[in-house]
């Protein structure tokens, strides 16, 4: 009973806010109110209060240590609002006034930007804007272009103006999101249980691992992994894996359903911890996986590889965005946070977790030389590599999976995406789950 009513009220509240936001008068009304407040109708109260930024994002990027360090440095408080990837988008579309800073992935922008709920970020106010890695601005790593199938960040990073609802093809003064972290995903495997080299995405559906494989149950990402498998198996070559036609979606889902009916999957997983548990408990020996999840399995003392594959990686990137209604001191605070974030401490922190930071120069200055050599240059560790909270991730002599930054990020085959046929895709994905 509770489940039903909860679902119903959830839907209803979402619908109600969605419906209200669709009407322009309310938004401009709110803007007006915010304007009056910002103009200092209550100056005394206003300046006495410390700024609190409500930071909407997934739990993975919301690190307690980062929030604490920022508050220590600037006196601005970060209040984490942790939800799943899908819910970040939902909140951004239906309740844009429920946060002051959004941390979301570039592929979600195709859904959020057309609503006008995000404000273009003024690059002139971002100190390190010109140092943001070329992967985002021009789609290149070390001067070499990487794969741009799917929602590559360079396609959606610039807006035509501060209040624009459309993406700009050429660089402008306004960015939709300021990049924070990104990575290239691949399959995670248990080398101790597989005992042979794995080098292709096709292995995910290899009957040898029947009942021991898992795939991601976030449709828009899971279908990309499936597409990598379909191509690797030589069934079909997509013109753009990140934007399939209905026929291509049918084909991809059909392949998944056949595998599922043959008992290939032990489980599907939806959140970080689920994937860690599946792998650590040995329920699954091969699955699509996120890099920090592999790290988490390893810190339990269990062998786990973030396996580089010959077909390349599926990349993703996340960044900070500002809600359109943000203004006054909160807006200044948000800019301060973004600037602080790109300033190195947070970047180094993220690099040590196996992610990559958007501004590499500043992160480098906050990392030890041996750390930089291990994480970024693909060199063997000269001493034990520790995670930010002190757990040993790799013993001296170990080399990072996938090698250097250039080898890994240069091997991007496609990006997480939202397709034009997204609704159809979700419907077909439900078919796969029900099959």
């Amino acid at each position, binding site marked *: *009973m509770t489940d039903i009513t909860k679902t119903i009220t959830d839907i209803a509240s979402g619908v109600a806010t969605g419906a209200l936001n669709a009407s322009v008068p309310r938004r401009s009304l709110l803007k007006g109110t915010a304007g009056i407040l910002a103009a200092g109708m209550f100056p005394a109260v206003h300046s006495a209060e410390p700024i609190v930024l409500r930071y909407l994002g997934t739990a993975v990027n919301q690190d307690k240590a980062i929030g604490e360090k920022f508050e220590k440095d600037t006196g601005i408080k970060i209040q984490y609002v942790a939800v799943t990837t*899908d819910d970040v988008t939902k909140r951004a579309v239906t309740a844009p006034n429920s946060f002051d800073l959004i941390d979301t992935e570039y592929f979600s922008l195709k859904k959020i930007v057309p609503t006008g709920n995000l404000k273009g970020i003024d690059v002139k106010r971002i100190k390190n804007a010109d140092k943001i890695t070329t992967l985002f601005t021009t789609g290149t790593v070390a001067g070499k272009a990487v794969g741009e199938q799917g929602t590559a960040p360079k396609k959606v990073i610039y807006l035509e103006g501060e209040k624009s609802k459309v993406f700009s093809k050429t660089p402008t003064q306004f960015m939709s999101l300021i990049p924070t972290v990104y990575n290239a995903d691949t399959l995670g495997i248990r080398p101790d249980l597989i005992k042979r080299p794995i080098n292709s995405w096709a292995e995910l559906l290899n009957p040898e691992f029947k009942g021991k494989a898992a795939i991601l149950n976030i449709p828009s990402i899971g279908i990309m992994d499936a597409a990598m498998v379909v191509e690797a198996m030589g069934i079909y070559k997509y013109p753009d894996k990140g934007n399939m036609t209905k026929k291509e979606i049918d084909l991809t889902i059909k392949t998944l359903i056949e595998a599922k009916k043959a008992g290939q999957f032990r489980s599907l997983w939806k959140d970080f911890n689920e994937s860690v548990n599946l792998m650590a408990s040995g329920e699954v020996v091969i699955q699509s996986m996120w890099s920090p999840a592999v790290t988490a399995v390893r810190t339990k003392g269990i062998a786990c590889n973030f396996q580089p594959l010959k077909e390349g990686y599926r990349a993703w990137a996340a960044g900070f965005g500002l809600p359109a209604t943000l203004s006054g001191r909160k807006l200044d605070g948000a800019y301060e946070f973004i600037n602080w974030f790109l300033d190195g401490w947070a970047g180094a922190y993220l690099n040590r977790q196996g992610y990559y930071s958007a501004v590499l120069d500043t992160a480098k200055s906050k990392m030890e030389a041996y750390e930089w050599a291990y994480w970024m240059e693909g060199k063997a560790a000269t001493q034990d590599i520790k995670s930010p909270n002190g757990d040993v991730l790799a013993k001296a002599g170990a080399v990072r999976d996938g090698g250097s930054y250039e080898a890994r990020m240069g091997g991007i085959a496609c990006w997480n995406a939202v397709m034009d046929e997204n609704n159809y895709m979700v*419907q077909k994905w439900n078919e796969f789950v*029900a099959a």
Partner: protein
Amino acid sequence: MSTSPTTLPASTQAPGRSIAAWWQAMPLSLVFVLFFLIPLALIGMVSFWDFNEYELLPDFTFKNYVSVFDGCSNMDEMCVTFKTYLSTFKFSFLVWLITLVIGFTVSYFLAFYVRSSGVQTLLFVLCTIPFWTSNVIRMISWVPLLGRNGLVNQSLQGIGLINTPIEWLLFSDFSVVLAFVHLYTMFMIVPIFNSMMRIDRSLIEAANDSGASAWQTLWNVIVPLSRTGIIIGSIFVITIVMGDFVTIGVMGGQQIASIGKIIQVQTSYLQFPLAAANAVILLSIVLMIIWALTRLVDIRKEL
């Protein structure tokens, strides 16, 4: 739920028609209207709306309902919606049957075999202990027990009963039903126990005196008199299982279909009108089940 004619004359003189009674009823009615009826009406409304990637478009279209039953006229293979409902019905039925048998037995023992009311209370509280932790934790605690390298498999292998781990213990229909039974048997025990406690003990003595066997007493006296409890418990269990997506997700390895799961996926992709249409259909089916069950007993009279 009709008002029976015998109570009518009494209620005309009762204080039920005074202003004060209306005021007293108002807070609950307001909460009910605000948080149940209005949202429900909104869902009904939105189920006829159109939508795109990021917007709901007010409209009056049957598109959503049509797409719920898309492909259902195909006779060769069942469509997703029917398959999903079939799987949901299957779980509802299995869980209902098992919780009923266990719930009835436990209640019977508590009500008729335990003599002292102190021990009765103690045992009853014992039944509620699992409810001191959250649903999800109780559910997840099964995972390390049933897993491929879990406690059960390790023990069985340890004593040499099996050579390879049993795979169907976890992420299967079995584990889903097991978790449901574990989670919701209490919802059967409480109402059935409650009904049984109201049974006049002299009726059982009378049955004994008339020479009825234990089974005859059980079947002809106790079961009919516990009917209200059984029906209320059944409503609890069936409605919960029909709407569930968490238990089926966690225990079924996310690859068993449930109608609740479909609604959840659709809302997370901003397909609110589709989800609303699904919710309306689910609600109608659950209401029909409840209606059918309440035909069997007049709950208001029995309470």
